[in-house]
């Protein structure tokens, strides 16, 4: 009885020792030299494997950052991440202008009232192949949330009141996954401008004003008033639509004042300047009276 126990213990111990030695020598022989900083950098990255950089994942990106000093880096990182990575690698942290996703449509349930109800598969890309939107705008937000499903950071949610997706400025990393998911290309990554507010055209309707105002109260009609008042010449007009160049814009908000349909948007709303600029209060009133008359007219004809 004792012998059996002793034999087993000795045999197993000997077997373990031999196998351990084999493993040790194999590990020595096939050892892979890896920069220890890669693991550290990978840990400092956001770790969502969102794919915004075009790499297979965050670790792949870390390899690229460590090996290539000229590489600009992860598009999703915030300042904290960038500082950490710079510290690990002993580089100067690059300055990055924070950006955020904006929705170039202000239609939704409130401004573009539903004329039909879509009961099919609740997916924007499917609905886009069958119809305009429930409000009738062929370019507007469908509101079924393909973009919210694409977000890896839980930053986009449909607001049940407006039926439009809204980005959480705290969570959005501007990775751009949602811009790819939108079948109508309504989402754009723009500078965040936390101090002044970001200015953009909240409409993508390329139709003429006579058609677009029938389906939505806040459509850009391509009147060009914004382009005329812009001191930076940042606004261009094409296809009955204005576009604000993000690099030229200084967020002076003159265009927001001038827009007759309120398609020109300033976000967040609390950054909106008090609407009584010194030079001319009279024309401002006129511009506000005009759209009111216009909407009632279209409502009457429609």
């Amino acid at each position, binding site marked *: 009885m004792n012998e059996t126990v002793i034999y087993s213990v000795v045999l197993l111990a000997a077997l373990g020792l031999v196998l351990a030695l084999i493993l040790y020598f194999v590990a020595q022989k096939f050892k892979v030299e890896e920069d220890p900083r890669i693991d550290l950098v990978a840990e400092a990255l956001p770790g969502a494997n969102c794919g915004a950089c075009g790499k297979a994942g965050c670790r792949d990106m870390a390899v690229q950052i460590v090996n290539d000093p000229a590489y600009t880096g992860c598009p999703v990182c915030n300042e904290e991440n960038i500082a950490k990575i710079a510290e690990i690698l002993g580089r100067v942290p690059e300055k990055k202008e924070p950006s955020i996703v904006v929705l170039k449509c202000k239609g939704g349930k409130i401004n573009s009232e539903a*004329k*039909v109800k879509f*009961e*099919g*598969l609740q*997916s924007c*890309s*499917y609905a886009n*192949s*069958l*119809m*305009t*939107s429930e409000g*009738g705008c*062929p370019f507007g937000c469908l509101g079924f949330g393909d973009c919210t499903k694409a977000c890896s950071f839980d930053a986009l949610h449909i607001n049940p009141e407006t039926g439009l997706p809204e980005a959480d400025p705290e969570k959005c990393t501007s990775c751009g996954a949602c811009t790819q998911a939108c079948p109508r290309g309504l989402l754009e990554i723009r500078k965040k401008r936390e101090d002044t507010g970001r200015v953009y055209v909240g409409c993508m309707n390329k*139709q003429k004003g006579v*058609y677009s105002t029938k389906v939505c109260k806040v459509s850009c009609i391509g009147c060009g008033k914004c382009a005329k008042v812009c001191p930076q010449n940042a606004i261009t007009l094409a296809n009955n639509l204005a576009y604000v160049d993000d690099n030229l814009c200084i967020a002076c908000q003159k265009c927001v004042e001038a827009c007759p349909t309120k398609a020109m948007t300033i976000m967040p709303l609390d950054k909106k300047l008090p609407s009584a600029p010194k030079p001319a209060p009279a024309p401002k009133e006129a511009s506000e009276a005009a759209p009111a008359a216009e909407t009632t007219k279209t409502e009457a004809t429609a």
Partner: protein
Amino acid sequence: MKTFNIGGVHPNDSKLNADAPMQELPIPKQVCVMVSQHLGAPSQPIVKKGDKVKVGTVLTSNEAFLSAVVHSPVSGTVNKIADIPDASLYPKPAIFIDVEGDEWEESIDRSPEIKREISLSGPEIIQKIKEMGIVGMGGACFPTHVKLMPPKDAKAEFLLLNGVECEPYLTCDYRLMLDHAEEILIGASALMKALDVKQAIVGIEANKPKAIAHMTETAKNFPGISVQALKMKYPQGAEKQLIKALTGRAVPSGKLPINVGCVVDNVATCYAVYQAVQKNMPLIQRMVTVTGPSIPEPTNFLARLGTPVSAFLEAVGGIPGDSGKVISGGPMMGKALSSTETCSVKGMSGILVLPEKQAHRQTVYPCIRCGKCVDACPMGLEPYLIAATAMAKDFEKTEKARVMDCIECGCCQFSCPSFRPLLDSVKLGKATVGKIIRARNAKN
């Protein structure tokens, strides 16, 4: 009795009031003619505001091969050319014509007698069909002249006439076969001459015994044309299923009916061909079934193209109070209309008004892997798998599951006990895979 062998479903056929006589719908005060009413390259209007037109005046032009022109269905003045929202609410160009009298182009033969002798040669018939803007009247609106010009290496052996009308509720083809059997068969003879085929078979489902009897009787005077009764099953009116049912031939995946020597045309298309070839009359009117469970008297109307849907509904006494949905076409493949101001087009075979309690989708439950959709699919596909891969955006697998063979008949969704939106997901997958394939072909 013959039918196709794989899948298919048996919806309640609901052919309401089918034996009521056809009625002619009065011409409305204004018609709105969609500029493009066919499958293929879009057309351009060639009239302008203020132009006087007669019935049969050409309104659009199109240089493309896969195209069909549109003729004025009424006489009057062009009021405007503007975009109006179609059934999908997308704005599409349309020509609005204010109706003044009913003056026809002199070239059109309006006499009631039937012209039996086909004097035109084969190529002349095809040219005539093209000039008269004939498209497939079953709903797909495929330009008919394109079907008559098969590629050099293919030869047609059979002309198959589709009198199946497998969609529930619709009765316009049935009515046409009872009222105009001889004209349909003369049209078919013209198509046979153009295609140089010796044999034509008319397929009619067994739920239309009167039409089968009448067509068989009439076909005795037409050598080469026979009538075949078919077992009732949806979607027998689909091209590939009809070929299988009538000839036993199977169209291989990715091939066309002409590859197995068949050309399929609807009976209503044959009637339009008769009018074009023998009477020189362009496609300016069609038979439209206005029906629904709560419509007091469902009727087939002969109406000019461009008549608003509201005019049809007024003719049957307005929309019943409990209505929830108005559909253009049948309940299986038709499209819900967004407005009753939408105007009739060449492919509109019916207007179906569904009561509120039938109009909506039911709550969706999880897939229970019962396999009913696989049994029902007439193309032998696995709809649950295609839907799942498409929703997971794994389009390689969607393509391997042969999504491009889907004919979008809706049997899978109809048979699903969990009311899953299978057809929707499959259509989404089909559209995306189609794009991927086109991109791949463009690269190579």
